């Protein structure tokens, strides 16, 4: 039996799909092209193989995701990860939260912020800049968005410039998207322990 993980963790779980991923041997030419399958690249995650059921979306989603999280300039990568983590905590997407908490800790070379958030929840004690970033991303991630002028004013007074604020909007909104795929189409599990 596999164990479904229900608590936030920085240890990235295995993602187990609830639908059957595309089987590479049955994949269409369009699916193979979107998956960038080549003789030397046949290792594709079950998540991406699941998304390959909707190949037109997959084709546009991957470059958009990378541009929002990794393009140069604007907000630091670690702070974009904090926006992603806030959304994932609102939507209780354990898998996304694990991946992006781990990346935040890696980029910051510190587990301090993510330890506090996982231990104390959204009210964890953060420095003023992280506080403004996290609160805005949480409010924007509610449905409908609960972000208001007071959240924007807090970002500006914490010293974020307009380019950084735009990147925060994009990275936290992006996880409104990612969470609705990861948390809906599959679940985070701990693989069964090998006995003996």
């Amino acid at each position, binding site marked *: 039996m596999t164990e479904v993980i229900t608590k936030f963790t920085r240890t990235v779980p295995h993602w187990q799909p609830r639908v059957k991923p595309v089987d590479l041997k049955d994949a269409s030419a369009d699916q193979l092209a979107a998956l960038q399958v080549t003789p030397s690249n046949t290792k594709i995650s079950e998540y991406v193989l699941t998304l390959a*059921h*909707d190949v037109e979306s997959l084709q*546009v*989603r991957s470059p958009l995701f990378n541009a*929002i999280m990794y393009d140069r300039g604007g907000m630091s990568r670690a702070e974009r990860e904090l926006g992603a983590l806030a959304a994932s905590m609102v939507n209780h997407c354990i898998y996304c939260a694990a991946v992006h908490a781990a990346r935040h800790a890696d980029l910051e070379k510190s587990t301090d912020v993510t330890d506090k958030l996982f231990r104390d929840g959204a009210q964890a004690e953060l420095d003023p800049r992280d506080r403004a970033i996290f609160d805005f991303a949480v409010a924007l991630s509610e449905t409908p*968005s609960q972000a208001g002028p007071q959240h924007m004013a807090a970002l500006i007074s914490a010293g974020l410039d*307009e380019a950084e604020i735009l990147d*925060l909007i994009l990275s936290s909104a992006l996880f*409104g998207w990612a969470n609705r795929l990861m948390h809906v189409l599959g679940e985070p599990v701990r693989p069964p322990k090998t006995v003996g």
Partner: protein
Amino acid sequence: MNTTALKSAGLGNAPGDAVEGRAKIFKMTQAAEEAVLRPQDYGRWSHELRAAFAARIALQYDERALSDQYAASAGAFASLAEPSQDGADDGLETVVAFMDKVATDTRNVTAADIAGLQAAGISDADIVRLCELNAFLAYQLRVIAGLRLMKDGYA
């Protein structure tokens, strides 16, 4: 830039330096809207039905003008834009309930919700298509809400 997100946020004409600096992202966002609303391989969900779901979700996010814009392409499904409609008239109650839960109560979606769609005869590919439509809109509607606040914050 002529994109749904920028126009809806009131930034279609003079988006400003920050948005111009991320022009590629806004163009890709528009391409993603095309891919979920008007895909060539639309599976079980016609372009009209997709527009109706988009209109419904936009209303759940309090975006009335954008909802009306989507509903104009929803043809016979336009009434589904109203959250009070449960989809029973079109035999879509299971699908509509699923879309509502994914849009507004994501954290409580469970394996049983996917199993319910499968039991109703929805293929796995069509389940992924529903999720991509819903998930993209969750992104775009938040970008719009955020941009509007940013515009006012720097006014």
